[in-house]
């Protein structure tokens, strides 16, 4: 992966997933290593996302890299009308790798085409967020001790959730069975289902989650936003069906873990937090190790990493 940009989950092979996850495992055991001390990482957040930015900056800082950048485009030259190309070309003079988040879909791909240094996409509009997907894979592999043969349920907004789309696509590399639980209005788009069909894998669709919970290894919760509904009454009618309460986990398999890309609003009640099956906070922590692994692989310093 040396010197390669990571823009989309389609850019990496199954072997490369393994490479990233294996290295992330080493960083989990030993997260403070001075392996990137000669490198400068730029974090360009054309729209704010404190959580993702801090995760990347923590990853870089713990490895001894220097971090430059901006957290919000409204305070930078971008607001003065500079083109994305000019911003990227300028910043690439000052840094060895660019991490960027941008509200427009395709912006990261374009940046990687004009940039002389590699680009990591930290979210381009509703399109891709590959490091979220990698940390989800890492969390699944870590809690289930494998990626092949997992039964996973996705719950909530499967139509607009890019996190869900990317993870579904990534999991079609493995022998996954998909359980898709959503209101009629927010079903997984057929273009994403096509990936499952193309991989000859099974998927099942439901509108309620109770009967599904005992069957699955991973329960991936997402937030349902009111603005996705044309009719607010419809939102009021369905929203309760996609809230996870601790009592609903009574019949779950022992190895089941609950994931959520965070931030949550009310789709997981707080009584779930104390259940050992709740894994969403560790999941976010895993993001740091995965991002450390990616920065290290792209900058070509993986040989320096101690296990």
């Amino acid at each position, binding site marked *: 992966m040396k010197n390669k940009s990571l823009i*989309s989950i*389609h850019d990496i092979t199954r072997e490369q997933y393994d490479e990233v996850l294996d290295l992330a495992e080493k960083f989990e055991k030993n997260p403070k290593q001075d392996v990137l001390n000669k490198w400068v990482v730029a974090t360009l957040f054309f729209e704010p996302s404190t959580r993702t930015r801090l995760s990347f900056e923590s990853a870089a800082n713990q490895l001894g890299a220097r971090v430059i950048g901006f957290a919000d485009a409204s305070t930078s030259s971008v607001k003065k009308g500079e*083109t*994305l*190309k000019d911003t990227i070309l300028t910043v690439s003079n000052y840094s060895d790798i660019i991490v960027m988040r*941008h*509200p*427009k*879909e*395709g*912006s990261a*791909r*374009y940046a990687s085409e004009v940039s002389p240094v590699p680009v990591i996409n930290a979210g*381009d*509009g*509703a*399109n*891709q967020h590959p490091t979220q997907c990698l940390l989800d894979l890492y969390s699944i592999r870590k809690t289930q001790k494998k990626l092949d043969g997992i039964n996973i349920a996705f719950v909530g907004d499967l139509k607009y959730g890019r996190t869900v789309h990317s993870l579904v696509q990534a999991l079609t590399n493995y022998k996954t069975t998909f359980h898709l639980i959503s209101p009629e209005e927010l079903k997984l788009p057929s*273009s994403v289902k096509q990936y499952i069909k193309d991989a000859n894998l099974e998927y099942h669709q439901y509108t309620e989650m109770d009967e599904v919970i005992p069957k699955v290894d991973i329960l991936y919760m997402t937030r349902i936003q009111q603005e996705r509904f044309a009719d607010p009454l419809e939102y009021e009618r369905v929203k309760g069906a996609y809230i996870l309460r601790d009592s609903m986990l009574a019949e779950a398999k022992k190895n089941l873990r609950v994931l959520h890309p965070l931030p949550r609003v009310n789709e997981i009640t707080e009584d779930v937090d104390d259940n050992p099956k709740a894994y969403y906070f560790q999941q976010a922590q895993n993001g740091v190790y995965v991002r450390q692994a990616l920065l290290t692989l792209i900058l070509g310093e993986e040989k320096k990493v101690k296990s």
Partner: protein
Amino acid sequence: MAKQEKRTELKVTAIENGTVIDHIPPQSVFQVINILGLSRVKNQIMVGTNLDSQKLGKKGIIKVSKKYFESEEINKIALVAPSATLIVIKDFTVVYKAKVEIPQHITKIVKCINPNCITNHEDIPTNFTVIEREDGLRLHCNYCEKYTKKENIHFV
């Protein structure tokens, strides 16, 4: 049939050397002109449309003198004129004749349907991969990764 062809020839003069694009659906003639950028070239160009055609009922034809196109370029017109035939003329003789084929990639000429795509906000040429499935042709944007269906294709 021979008579029919001859009458068409009389309406649109034969060229000595160059390219003829025949069997264009009449409603697509001006799109073909745009796609090939013919409004900007200095060559002699003859355009006929609503001509009688055995195959299509009515058809359009474009003759461009002393100009030859790369197949990549000419194939772009297959998006609007899949029935079109490409004919290469040298010394008044047909040296090549073939139906246009839909290319694997479409660059610059089509707008991405996604309003939030970066190509609709900055001055960036679009770039699509052509996907043909049983339910029809669609273009996959290499930037935003969204699909534009055939019926939603708009030219830049």
